[in-house]
């Protein structure tokens, strides 16, 4: 796996990260389509994800639970907007409460996943994320980062958040 390109667009709070894998498109699509595989890469090892519901069709939901090193549980969900297996997935990633219902007022991330076969074999995956605001990004980063990165960013946040 190689991350081949990162495009950050800070004025629009969006970013595209592109990576290439040797595996074919159908195999890479399984990383999203199979909940048992999805939960193995979505969260970091220190913050593992468990997939509770997985309905990858437009209008469907993917619900997950993440467990902190201290055992604290937080729920999240994807609202599935577009699916064209095995090459396109567009979801809104949101926070959910204990009853796995969407938490209103919490930031939503738009995530557009595109898979394409590379002419030389393998798959190109691009993830386009759009965040609602700078404040939302600050809030979201708390959730998705590993400890080292969180410590480093936390130091920055201490200055920037005030």
């Amino acid at each position: 796996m190689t991350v081949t390109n990162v495009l950050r667009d800070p004025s629009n709070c969006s970013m595209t990260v592109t990576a290439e894998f040797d595996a074919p498109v159908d195999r890479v699509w399984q990383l999203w389509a199979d909940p048992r595989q999805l939960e193995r890469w979505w969260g970091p090892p220190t913050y593992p994800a468990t997939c509770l519901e997985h309905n990858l069709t437009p209008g469907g939901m993917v619900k997950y639970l993440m467990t902190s090193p201290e055992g604290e549980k937080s729920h999240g969900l994807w609202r599935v907007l577009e699916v064209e297996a095995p090459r396109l997935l567009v979801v809104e990633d949101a926070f959910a409460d204990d009853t796995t219902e969407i938490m209103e007022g919490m930031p939503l991330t738009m995530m557009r996943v595109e898979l394409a076969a590379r002419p030389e074999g393998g798959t190109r995956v691009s993830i386009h994320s759009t965040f609602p605001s700078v404040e939302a990004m600050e809030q979201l980063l708390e959730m998705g980062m590993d400890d080292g990165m969180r410590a480093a960013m936390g130091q920055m946040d201490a200055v920037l958040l005030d």
Partner: protein
Amino acid sequence: MVVDQMSDHEVDRLFHALADATRRDIVRRVMHGDCSISELARSYAMSMTAVQKHVIVLEGAGLVAKYKQGREQRVVGSLDAVHRAQHLLEGFEQVWRERFDRMGELLSEPTPGG
């Protein structure tokens, strides 16, 4: 939009600048409103020279800027929303790099999902 990327050197300077509690406090203060060097020196019970040194480090990391008003030197925060967004996007980039690493490991397993 020009997509600017921080070099390792710039990141080092930024973290070094933020590693000191007084410097973090200076950034926090000037983001809410400009301060003169002498005002800062008074509030930290430090010499003007000591404050100047901190300000130079912060300036080098792009966190603050200095300007002259009359005979006074004033310090202003230089991190606007776009800069903050830029730093935060670096955090999300890291999240995705780690996710891609885990995907790569999964894909290299002999039986899918095994």
